[in-house]
């Protein structure tokens, strides 16, 4: 954890990590007994799902939840039997469905999945039908949205959060797959304008992809997607219609169509309690417990387990939580390093205002939010300009959970707007 410098007048230096020159060979982690997969749809029609408890599945099998919603599906990474389908509540009341599969070690093989056949002839429709749950979580459905016309594809080769090097690793070792992925994306979407954003030291590597290369600064949060859109590519953002993909997602597309298999192995940056980093290559859906065992880390009561980076990740309440297709990092923090929030009011010291990358008057925003005036916060203090980088809460002297406050306020305003629209 980077602490405030003695010379507090200088801004805190939060720099992205760069991957070591010596190629770190990732530790391969296979799921032990079961995998958990999430489907992005509420589990409301229990009796009428297309998949049932007890169904046996093979690797690469498409598990669609409802007949009438082809977008709500996942891919089984293993052979086994569905042990449970249940409702799962994610961040900010996001309703999802969890599918738990008990692994059958001698289970069937994946040679003849339906994807193998369609992969000979890449098409957007089939890519969207099979790849949404693959490593990196490529969102291809956004090209099928009739209200949106995508003009530019941006490949994010620099990791958005600190300590994470997953996408850097993909650029370093899998640039060929990224290139294939970009070629396929161009072909199936018809969007020719592709930009790849990478850390300064990888500009040369990324040059081989025949996409426009943009270097991203090393200071947090310059590699944050919203920062890239606003500062690095303002003209493209102005035209509207940008589709964002992580480098890993594009590599998945490339690999899928060249091998005929849906890539379900993902790179996860693991940071142990002592701060050392280990890359693991893990099957999507694997419980984090299995990763902990593989990297030799033991968690104790009071520790914090984080899926994602230190600034924007999500704390987990159980080590049984699975690796999701877009989980780029897993961080374990010892309980002695945890700085707790307080309910001390804002003292107006202005640290947050000076560090905010998008000039939000955070001191005023906090006051509106404290009073529950979320609409005022949105109107007067640019609540929705926030890119959710977490820096305000990082520097807060009163240790107010500002970032959580902002999430809550946005959620409340969105819910109010939705209710108004429904009543209109």
């Amino acid at each position, binding site marked *: 954890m980077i602490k405030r410098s003695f010379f507090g007048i200088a801004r*805190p230096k939060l720099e992205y990590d760069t991957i070591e020159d010596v190629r770190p060979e990732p530790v391969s982690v296979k799921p032990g007994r079961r995998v958990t997969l999430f489907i992005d749809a509420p589990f409301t029609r229990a009796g009428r799902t297309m998949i049932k408890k007890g169904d046996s599945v093979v690797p690469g099998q498409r598990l669609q939840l409802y007949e009438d919603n082809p977008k709500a599906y996942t891919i089984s990474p293993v052979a086994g039997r569905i042990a449970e389908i249940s409702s799962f509540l994610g961040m900010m009341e996001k309703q999802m469905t969890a599918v738990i599969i008990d692994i059958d070690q001698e289970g069937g093989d994946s040679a003849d999945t339906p994807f193998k056949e369609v992969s000979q002839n890449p098409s957007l429709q089939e890519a969207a039908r099979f790849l949404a749950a693959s490593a990196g979580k490529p969102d291809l459905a956004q090209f099928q949205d009739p209200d949106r016309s995508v003009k530019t594809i941006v490949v994010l080769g620099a990791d958005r959060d600190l300590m994470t090097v997953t996408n850097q690793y993909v650029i370093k070792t899998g640039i060929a797959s990224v290139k294939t992925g970009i070629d396929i994306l161009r072909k199936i979407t018809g969007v020719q304008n592709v930009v790849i954003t990478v850390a300064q030291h990888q500009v040369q590597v990324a040059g081989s992809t025949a996409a426009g290369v943009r270097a991203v600064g090393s200071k947090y949060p310059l590699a944050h997607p919203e920062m890239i859109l606003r500062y690095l590519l303002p003209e493209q953002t102005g035209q509207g219609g940008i589709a964002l993909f992580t480098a890993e997602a594009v590599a998945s597309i490339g690999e899928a169509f060249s091998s005929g298999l849906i890539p379900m192995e993902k790179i996860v940056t693991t940071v142990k309690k002592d701060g050392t980093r280990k890359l693991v290559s893990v099957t999507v859906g694997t419980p984090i417990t299995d990763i902990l065992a593989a990297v030799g880390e033991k968690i104790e*009561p009071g520790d914090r387990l984080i899926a994602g980076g230190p600034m924007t990740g999500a704390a987990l309440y159980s080590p049984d939580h699975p690796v999701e297709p877009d989980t780029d990092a897993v961080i374990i923090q010892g309980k002695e390093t945890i700085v707790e929030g307080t309910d001390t009011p804002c003292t107006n*010291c202005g640290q947050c205002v000076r560090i905010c990358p998008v000039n939000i008057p955070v001191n005023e925003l906090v006051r509106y939010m404290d009073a529950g005036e979320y609409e005022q916060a949105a109107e007067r203090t640019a609540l*929705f300009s926030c890119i959710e980088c977490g820096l305000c809460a990082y520097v807060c*002297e009163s240790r107010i959970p500002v970032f959580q406050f902002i999430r809550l306020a946005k959620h409340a305003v969105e819910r109010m707007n939705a209710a108004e629209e429904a009543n209109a």
Partner: protein
Amino acid sequence: MPNRIKLTVSHAPFWHDGSSITTKHYNIIAATLIAVIAGLVQYGLPALAVLTLSVGSAMAWEFLMNLLMRRPVSIGDGSAALIGLLFGMLLPAMVPWWVVIVGTLVAVVIGKQIYGGIGGNPFNPVAVAYAILLISWPLYLDFNAMLVDYSFNFKAAYPLVLYKFQGTGALDFGMMDLLLGRQTGGIGATFGLGLILGGIYLIIRGFIRWEISVSFLAGIFITALCFNLCNPEIYASPGFHLLTGFSLIGAFFLATEDSSSPVHFFPMLIYGALGGFLTVLIRNLGAHVDGVIYAILIINLIHPLIEKIRPKAMGRIMHHA
């Protein structure tokens, strides 16, 4: 078998830079020490009594208000101690004990707690207390009257009183003497060098905002210089204004109080410069001897207004319905 280990679950970010308001307050207290020790050397035990009573009673009032308002006890965060210390530093060494206690009562209760405690006060609590006391019992805050029992090896008249009532002709202070505290005044407000060093320490550590201090001093300097150039026979030099009265303690320790000052760049400059300007205006043209306290109260008052001058937030995202 579900894993039953209880983990710490909280919202991002999971890093914190380790700063806290307690650290900040104790650092500000530490930064006053050079000036405070110089004051103690000059005024002896009575000054120590005033300072300890001031700090102690401020913390006692804070504790009492915590109990009355059923809020968590907050005397440990250093805020009340700092208010007490700064208030004591403004007082003459021989001030009656009850004036100190009433002063800290006003500072902590009326200046801070009735607005909801730390962070809620629209005015600097110390300035509020000092202004109310100055109006109520001007005699006890009159440095010439209060320090009459002392004998100094320098001119014992309070420089700003001399300036106000006898004009520039009576001012035969050397700048170096003023800087080194060879003048009468508040216990902790006369040793200019100590205040400057403390202020620079706080600026480097990032505990106060340099924009406010620098523009406050620049405001005093430029305004005083203009007056001085117009008529040097009537108006004192800018150096005199900078080194006497509460100019330095005001610039580094009072105007920079977080809750009552702006945080954006240009508002900070305007806020400070206006404070300096008003200080000299009150001293040169107004009825009062020193203008710092009133100037700070006035800029506190306008701070929410000038805070509106700020950069536009980048790219307002249309939130998807």
